[in-house]
């Protein structure tokens, strides 16, 4: 079986966000980019599924973005993925247009099982995997922390408010990975060396229209510095009375 993993090249979570001069995106100056943290769980799940399925399986990593996304594809290859595809587009797209490009490629590759991260930590949109599934007519279970495949039947657990849902579906399917699904493996030195020899196929991302448009990016109003009420428990009565009378939250 051919398994696809969709990955995204995103600013490190330690990034201090500044708005770029275009007014609609972040200023990339001095920003380190990494593989989206949730995508690492997706890559790991794809690799361990491939190992369980045996020899006839392969894992292809797909990303939509500029040349720089090759770094993130390379990282997934170093972890053990077999091949990579970069769907090139230097212009920003909304999730809909990204999903359109991904789904066209997944269809062309004939992948029946697809893993994505549950959200990318830049736009936090949480929907690309579901959009890809729906565009392909695949089943979808987002935000999974357990995954089991028996024949074409999938049983997964997903995290929701106040507990976990056990969900059943069938292949072909898209799953989106939540932290806790697995422990992503580190790329071995050999993996890193082999990854350098693996090819990343580059092609233009399929044309697709964004259905939403970002008008403006802005920073939240700075919080005014609060009050330090004391350095030990003697400040507790004042704290409680402020919470009751000033904040009115108790």
């Amino acid at each position, binding site marked *: 079986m051919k398994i696809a993993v969709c990955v995204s090249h995103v600013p490190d*979570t330690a990034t201090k966000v500044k708005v770029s001069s275009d007014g609609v995106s972040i200023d990339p100056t001095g920003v380190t980019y990494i593989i989206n943290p949730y995508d690492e769980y997706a890559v790991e799940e794809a690799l361990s599924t491939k190992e369980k399925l045996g020899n006839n399986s392969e894992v292809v990593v797909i990303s939509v973005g500029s040349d720089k996304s090759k770094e993130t594809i390379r990282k997934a290859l170093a972890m053990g993925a077999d091949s990579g595809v970069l769907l090139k587009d230097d212009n920003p797209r909304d999730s809909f247009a990204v999903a359109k490009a991904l789904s066209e490629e997944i269809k062309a590759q004939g992948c029946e099982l697809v893993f994505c991260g549950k959200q990318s930590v830049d736009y936090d949109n949480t929907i690309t995997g579901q959009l890809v599934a729906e565009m392909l007519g695949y089943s979808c*279970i987002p935000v999974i922390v357990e995954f089991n495949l028996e024949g074409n039947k999938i049983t997964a657990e*997903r995290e929701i*408010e106040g507990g976990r*849902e056990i969900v059943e579906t069938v292949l072909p399917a898209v799953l989106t990975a939540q932290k806790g699904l697995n422990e992503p493996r580190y790329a071995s030195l050999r993996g890193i060396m082999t990854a350098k020899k693996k090819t990343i196929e580059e092609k233009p991302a399929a044309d697709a229209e964004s*259905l939403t448009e970002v008008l403006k990016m802005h920073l939240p109003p700075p919080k005014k510095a609060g009050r330090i009420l004391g*350095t030990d428990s003697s400040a507790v009565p004042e704290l409680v009375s402020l919470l009751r009378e000033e904040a009115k939250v108790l």
Partner: protein
Amino acid sequence: MANKILAVLEQREGQLKRSAFETVGMAAKLASELNLEVEAVVTGNEISNINDIGSYGISKVIHLKNPDFENYSSSGYRDAVTDYANESDADYLLLANTSMGKDLAPLLGVKLNAGCIMDCVNIDVSSGNLIATRPVYAGKALIDVKPKSAKIVITIRPNVFKPVPGGSSSPQIEVREISSPNLQTRVVEFKKAEGKLDVAEADIIVSGGRGMKGPEHFDLIEELADLLGGAVGASRPVVDAGWRPHSEQVGQTGKTVSPSLYIACAISGAIQHLAGMSSSKYIVAINKDKEAPIFSVADYGIAGDVFEVLPALIEEIKKIKA
């Protein structure tokens, strides 16, 4: 020209959730500002509190009913809601940005060829056009987004738009029996986390960091959370160390929360954590290190030893609750 807003509501275990009433309230407000019709649609079996929708401003409710809709089925709910949205020619679909909303909204978006704007914290229609504001980078920044498609699916962040009940009008409820729903993807079991309130839904959160020094000391955090009727939260190092489950993690690779009160205990305030909680209405920080970044977002702070301050705080709260 837009003509109708459809509030797509969530029920769990036969009860409309609080976020469903937030969705009703927001849909009613938008409808009145834009002069549109508004209806609510809910997928489920028996729903005990369905009549309450009336007092939050929507007078017509479509109940898409089937015994198998007791539990969530993304394929079944998607098809039932899509059919109704097409039939009623709704332009705007509004959902809560919950686990179910995040799953269902994009599926509806593809079916209806509607763009999705997720997790909105403000919706402005004063110009006559709809502009939605949503956090990105876990709240480090916000973006204003406008739809380009004729139809649009919007989800609103729970806890942000507090619904105000007004009057006690009974809504007109139209029950539609859905025959042989598509159950290709369905929930077969719900494993409830032992009666605990989820951090994403709580109005008060008591959160612990690495300075708690070990999982055994989280009983202090739990006791305070219980007393306040709140939920327990945790910082990333605490979750990575295995002291607390990931479902409690607040921050950029955990949950972004905006409760009325967030009490950060022995949390220094890494940028990823601050991003996830700084939109809380009131923040209290208890930390030995008075230079800790958490104090830069806290309304009230005590720069002291958490093991000395927390027990005193618990006693003081007990006094006022008594």
